[in-house]
């Protein structure tokens, strides 16, 4: 069959070396480039110092890189088999945070594991995609289109979303929900459902408003009218726009950004790192990093289109959607297109959890790519 020719030999066991060779090293290089850009920006934010952020950023990246390669080596069927257990471990960790989490930056999000402090709300994003992909993999197209089939995946999304909102972490909840619903769409749920869902969610905004924390309401109001409180909540977004705008086409030069070097920008090392980049390297720099991200995100979509198993497709496309949502929400936020919801720019922003999520996601995407020829039956992971 043409299909066989296109997808090559089936069920030939690859050696780890072969698997390594099959990894797309161009995409790996792009990931490294993004992380190095982040390191450079953290160096700049620290006023020309590797400490305290840049050095830890690069160290973490090296560790996460090894984790990514390790994950990529593992057979896709293995991942499918452990999709649900991993999901429940994630939920367990979220519950743990609920009762024994470390509070910081206005929310209880961290889990202290002694060696590292984990943010389970980050890891759960991967786990949700895994679980939903696993679920839809076992359904026929006919079953997929039944309304009742949507109950379980919606619950898979809703459970962690509710827990995360309670932390409170609106940004992660939105990302999580959008990612999960994106997979539903990819899996083949009826299109009109999304139209109706979209209308319903617009209609439910007033209800959601009542459940929002004051600081969240404040952010939304400020987003709608940044001049409302230029010295308070609107300050961040105004300063960010000033930095982006004053950077111009080519930027002010590395370590020459006045808005960042003189501390007019808020949260520079985390949420507003893109602004620092765009101020110092201008529109060219900003579009450059956006292009790099679109390359790795596009790669995930391409991988999903060339994968034989539904699980692999949904996993690769779902995870790249999550990465895209990170990138889009973060950049739109610092440009004043979205309210400030506290989503970092992965691999660039300082902070281990988002980096871990993205590197795990790419580990899985590479795993899908390496194992794309494997047919997996609907019932058994190792069909």
């Amino acid at each position, binding site marked *: 069959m043409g299909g066989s020719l296109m997808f090559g030999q089936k069920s030939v066991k690859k050696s780890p070396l072969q698997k390594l060779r099959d990894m797309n090293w161009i995409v790996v290089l792009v990931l490294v480039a993004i992380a190095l850009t982040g390191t450079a920006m953290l160096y700049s934010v620290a006023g020309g110092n590797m400490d305290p952020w840049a050095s830890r950023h690069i160290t973490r990246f090296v560790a996460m890189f090894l984790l990514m390669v390790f994950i990529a080596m593992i057979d896709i069927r293995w991942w499918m088999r452990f999709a649900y257990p991993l999901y429940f471990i994630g939920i367990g960790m979220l519950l743990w945070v609920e009762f024994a989490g470390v509070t910081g930056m206005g929310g209880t999000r961290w889990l202290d594991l002694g060696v590292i402090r984990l943010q389970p709300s980050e890891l759960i994003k991967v786990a949700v995609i895994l679980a939903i992909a696993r679920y839809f993999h076992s359904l026929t*197209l006919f079953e997929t289109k039944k309304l009742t089939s949507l109950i379980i995946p919606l619950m898979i999304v809703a459970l962690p979303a509710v827990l995360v909102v309670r932390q409170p972490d609106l940004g992660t909840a939105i990302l999580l929900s959008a990612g999960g619903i994106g997979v539903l769409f990819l899996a083949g749920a009826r299109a009109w459902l999304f139209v109706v869902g979209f209308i319903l969610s617009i209609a439910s905004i007033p209800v959601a408003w009542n459940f929002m924390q004051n600081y969240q309401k404040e952010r939304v109001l400020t987003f709608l009218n940044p001049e409302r409180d230029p010295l308070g909540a609107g300050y961040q977004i105004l300063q960010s726009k000033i930095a982006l*705008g*004053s950077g*111009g*086409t080519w930027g002010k030069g590395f370590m020459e950004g006045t*808005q960042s070097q003189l501390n007019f920008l808020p949260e520079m090392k985390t949420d507003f790192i893109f602004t620092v980049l765009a101020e110092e390297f201008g529109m060219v720099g900003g*579009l450059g990093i956006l292009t790099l991200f*679109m390359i790795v995100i596009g790669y995930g979509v391409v991988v999903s289109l060339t994968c034989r198993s539904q699980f692999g497709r949904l996993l690769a496309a779902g995870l790249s959607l999550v990465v*895209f949502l990170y990138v889009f929400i973060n950049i739109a936020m610092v440009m004043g297109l979205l309210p400030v919801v506290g989503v970092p720019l992965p691999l660039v922003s300082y902070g281990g959890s988002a980096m871990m999520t993205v590197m795990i996601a790419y580990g899985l995407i590479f795993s899908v790519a390496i194992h794309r020829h494997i047919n997996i039956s609907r019932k058994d992971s190792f069909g």
Partner: protein
Amino acid sequence: METEGDRFRLYTRRALLLGGGQLALATVLAGRMYYLAVIESSQYTMLAEDNRVSMRILSPTRGEILDRAGRQLATNRKDYRVFLIPEQAGDMEQTLQHLQLVYPLTTSNIDRIKRQVARQRAFLPVTVAENLTWEEFAKINVDIPHLPGIKPDAGETRFYPHGQAVSHVVGYVGPVTGGDRSADNDPALALPGFKVGRGGLEKTFDNALRGQAGDAREEVNAYGRVIRELARQDGTEGDEVVLTLDLELQKFVHERLGEHSAAVVVMDVENGDVIAMHSTPNYDSNDFNLGFSRQEWDSLRMDNRHPLVNKATSGQYPPGSTFKMAVAMAALKAGVINANERIECTGKHEFGDRIFHCWKEDGHGKVNLVDAIAHSCDVYFYDIANRVGINKINEMASELGLGTSYDIGLPGQMAGLLPTPAWKREQYGTGWRAGETLIVGIGQGAVLTTPLQLAVMTARLANGKTAIEPRLVHSVGGVVLDAPSKIEMNLNDRHLAYVRRGMEKVHEPGGTAYGSRLRGRGRSMAGKTGTSQVRAITQQQRDEGLENRGIEPWEERDHAVFVGFAPADNPRYAISVLVEHGGGGSSVAAPIGKDIMNKVLDLDPSATPTLSRKPSSSTNEQEA
């Protein structure tokens, strides 16, 4: 396999749709990036510059005020101070409370701060404390992280090294008010802790002394900390104001007047330079700079000895017998009396239905003009005043410099009063009575003079030729002020000689100020005492005898007056002394006059030329 194919096709469709959507959203981001960084870039670049660059106004150094020899009367010294910027304080109450832990503030101070905060805009700094010691200042600086809105600052403050000796002339500076800011757009006025002249020469020459504010463009970070200076335009220092005063003499006068409520003016009879001008009690100019408590201010304002008033220029007193020289000159000029003509004094002078008394109850006997001045015979002057008439007396008094104010740069100067029939009609609606001329003839009644005018009168009598005018400010910013006009007087030398001789005899045996003559070293002084009544002496008091005078309440006692010039034969300096409610001119004012004149002759300030600094460029020319 068929359903698997369908599923794959559906998946591909959806994946491409979703991927396309992502690409579209990424394009939106790129478009936004282009909009911000290219289309709107210039606007944001400007805002970024606004953020980064802070304009700081540099306070100009206030010009110094120097005495004739260049000694500092008003200068500047380092001032460690602390401001509060309400806008940055957040909870001001808490900031002040915390400040209290390192630097105690009085309740009145806190009240003042709160009042000021309520009055002005929140971004304008309010002075919390000034003139801190280095330790206090350092302590506050260490605690700065806990004191939001508190800004320590090392600036300059006005300092008067001889605060009390020259206070009325030099004046004082005070804080800028909202009124100043609206009347004047000098950017320096917005500076925290900036002071403007509020009294004396500080007020008159404020614009020259103030200088020109500079500015510095500084790069600041988000917390307002200065990172580096980008550009700097230094301000120009204020002009130096050099006075004709002699600080040494001024200090001596201050000491000598002691507890008296008095005024003294010493002038150069050749050029009109005011060598000393002092009024007591007074204040320390530094106190205005440091700020008064309400009580201190009230006690200054309510004091019946008027420490805030410069009595030398603003105090008006009947000149008493010191007016007699003017009357004598008028009578001689009018020819109504011959200098040698003797007039009989029996102690009283009957005029119409009234009796005018001489101070000497049993009379002076027959006296001529010289003796009448030497013994200050009232009856003689009743008589000649009546003969010459009020108008001619006033004419002469004006010629001698009375009844007018002088442009010496001091605010609040009074013109005194030379009463005329026209004035009487306007003021009281009644006609001038001949008896009033007699009273004016001995310097009592409605005639009023200031100590400065009396000094001018004495100087003109001593000079004899030029109608010299007083000069207090010698130069401003190196530019010597125009000498006052030198109008020739129309005085007869012979007449002057008689009057001067009379004044000389005042200090000779039998004269009213024999005790206050200058002794030894070939010194001599010609003078005239005066005792100006604050209340008319009643017949009852006269019956009881006048020896009890001097024990009535202070406010009702006579003013003691003395005028004189020295050396008597070759006059160089003129002096006037007025002691409010001091009692007798010969017993109180003349001894002060003697001591001061001795000091003047010791110092002889006119012997050395007044300091005049030329602009530096011309200094080289002089050397060449």
